[in-house]
C-alpha cells in the first residue's frame, strides 16, 4: 500500500494563493459594510459591525499568512502506471484514486497569476469528474501531463 511515491506541489503556489486570497477575501468586508448600511451605526449596532469587521479581518489575515501554507503542506500527488492518487485538504482531508484507464483527458491551464510565477495547473478529467493539481512548475506540469497521457493511452479502454 505504501509503495506509492507521493510528490508535493511546487511551493511557489503559496504565493499565488496568498495573492488571490488577499483579493478575493476582500469581498467578505462587504458583510460588515452591508450590516452598517442596513442598521446604521448606533450604540448597539456599532459593536456588532465592529466585531464582524474584526472577524472578517482575522479571516483575511489567516487566509494569507496561514491557510496557503497549510493547504500546500497537505497536498500530495502520485502517478504510476495504473493510477493517479491525490491527497489534499486541511479541515476536510480527501484522498482520491483515479484509475488511469478511466482518464479521458488531461489539460494544463494557466491564469495570469500562475503565469507570473511560471506555474501551471493540471486538470484530469474522467467521464464523471474533474480533478486538478493546483500548482506545478510549468516544466513539471508538462511532464506530468505527458506521463498521464502516455500511461492512459497504454490502458486504453472504453468508458
Amino acid at each position, binding site marked *: 500500500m505504501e509503495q506509492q511515491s507521493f510528490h508535493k506541489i511546487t511551493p511557489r503556489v503559496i504565493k499565488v494563493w496568498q495573492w488571490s486570497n488577499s483579493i478575493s477575501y476582500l469581498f467578505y468586508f462587504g458583510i460588515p459594510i452591508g450590516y452598517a448600511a442596513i442598521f446604521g451605526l448606533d450604540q448597539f449596532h456599532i459593536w456588532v459591525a465592529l466585531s464582524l469587521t474584526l472577524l472578517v479581518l482575522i479571516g483575511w489575515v489567516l487566509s494569507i499568512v496561514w491557510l496557503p501554507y497549510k493547504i500546500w503542506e497537505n497536498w500530495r500527488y502520485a502517478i504510476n502506471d495504473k493510477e493517479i492518487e491525490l491527497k489534499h485538504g486541511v479541515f476536510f482531508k480527501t484522498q482520491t484514486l483515479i*484509475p488511469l484507464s*478511466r482518464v479521458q483527458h488531461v489539460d494544463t491551464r494557466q491564469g495570469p497569476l500562475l503565469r507570473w510565477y511560471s506555474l501551471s495547473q493540471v486538470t484530469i478529467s474522467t*467521464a464523471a*469528474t474533474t480533478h486538478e493539481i493546483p500548482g506545478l512548475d510549468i516544466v513539471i506540469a508538462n511532464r506530468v501531463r505527458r506521463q498521464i497521457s502516455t500511461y492512459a493511452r497504454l490502458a486504453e479502454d472504453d468508458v
Partner: protein
Amino acid sequence: MSDFQRQHPVAAISRALGLIRGNFITILVFLFVGARSENFPFLWWIGGGAGFLLIAGFANWWRFLYKVEDDTLHIKSGIFVRKDIYLTKDRIQVIDVTSGVLQRLFGLVRLDIQTAGSSSRQAAIDAITIEDARDISYLLRPDKNGSSAEGDLKDSAESDSEEESIKSIKLPLKELLIAASTSGSFGIALSLIATVFSQVEPLIGQSEMYEYLIGLIPSDADFILILAMIGAFVLFAWLISFFSTLFKYGNFQLEVKEDEIVVSRGIFEKKRITIPYNRIQAIHVAEGMIRQPLGYASLHLESAGYGDEKGSGSFVLFPLIGKGNIQSLLQEILPDYNRGVEGITPPVRSLRRYIFRSSVLVTLITGILFWVLSLNVWIWLLPLVSVFWGWIRFKDAAAGWDGDLFVIRSRFLSKSTAYIKKKRIQDFSLHQSFFQRYRGLCSIKMYVASGDQGKSFGVSDLELDDGYRALDEARKETAVKISDMDKSEIELKNRLIHLPGWV
C-alpha cells in the same frame, strides 16, 4: 444511407412544439401580458408567435441533414451557425427511439444516438420513418466482441435474427398500478403545481371571479379552508403523478438480447431504449419510502449517455418488482450483477453522527419557528421523525466488495443498493472531516459515468480502517472478500453483514 438526407417534414412541427415546451412559462407570461395590452390585439400575439415558431421549425428542418457512412453518423445542423456532428459507432452508449403522439400520427419516430457527455444532445433526429431508424441503429450497432472476420460471417445470419430476443419480461398490470400509486414523482408534481400556481396566482388574484369565491367563504373557516386547500393540492399532485407514471410505464417491456438490453415503455409517448451490455456503468435498486414497507423496489441502470433533459444517465430498468423476485430478475437479465457479497456497516459510534446530521437542521428550524410563530407543540414531532430518519440511514449504510464487484448500500429518502463493476469506477475517494478524524471515521465515495456529471455512490462514517480497506481493494484487479481478509479484529466480525440483504 451514404447520401445526406432530410428528416420527415413533421420534424418542423415537432421542433416548433419543442420550442413551446422549452419556454412554456415565458410564453405563458407573454400571453397574459399580451392579453392585457389594449393597443395590440391578442390574436396578433398568438398568430405572430405561432408563425415565428413555424418558420423557425421549418428553417431548422431545412438545415438539418444526416447520413451514415463508414460506421459514422454525420449530422449537419444549425440555421446560422452550421454544426457538423460525427458520431462514431465505437463511442455510442445508448440508442433511444421515442415516438410521441405527433410522430405516431405519421408513423415516425425520434432517434437519439447518445454518446458519453452532453455534446451528442444535438444529434437527435426528430422525425424519421421507423424503417430508417431501424436501419440507422442497425448500422451503428456496436461490434460483437470486435471480431471482424467472424462478424462478417455472422452478419448475414444476424440480420434475420436481429429482432429476435432471448427473453422478454413484461410488467403485470397490478404492479403497474402499484408503481403508479406509489410513484416518487409525487413531490415533483407538487412543486410543479406550486410553481404554476405562483405564476398564475397574481393574475387570478385580481380577477372578479377570485373576489367572488373569497366572498363565498365564511371567515371563521380559515383553518379548515387551509387544510382543505392543502388536501386538494396533495390529491391533485398524487393524481398527476399517478397518471404520468401510468402513461410513462404502461406497455412496459424488457427484452434481453444476445448483447443488448431493450427497454420499451409508454402509452402515448412510446420509448424504446437500447443499451449494449458493455455500456452499462452500474445498476442500483431503489426501495422508496412508500414502496419499501410494501415489499417493492425498482431497478435502475446508469449509462454514460445523457438520458433525459436533466442530463442524468440513469433510467428505469424495471419500474416495480417484489423484493423477493429481484434476484431472479437479475439472474435473468444481468447474471453478472446477481451476487451476494459480504459487507461492512459503519461502527455503532457513528450512529450519533448520522442522527446529528439528519436532525440538526430540522430541529434548528423547528425551534426558531416554534418561538417566533408560537406554533403548536405537535410541531416537535418533526425533529423526532428526523432522528428516526438518521437512525434508518445509519441502519441501511453498508459497503461490500467481492471480486470485480462493489456493492454500496445507502439511503437518502429511498434505500438504494448499487452494484458497481470495479472497472467502471471513474474515481474513488476517501474523505475525512475534522471531526471524523477525531473519531477515527471516514466516508468513501465512488463515481461512475452517468450522463453529464456522473453519479456518485458512497457511505458515510465508516471505520477509518475499513475505508482504507475499500480504497486498497479498489486499487487491485480483483477484490478480496472481506471475510478472507484479516479477521484479527473481533469488532469487525460484528459489523459484517450480507449484502444486498434480500431473501
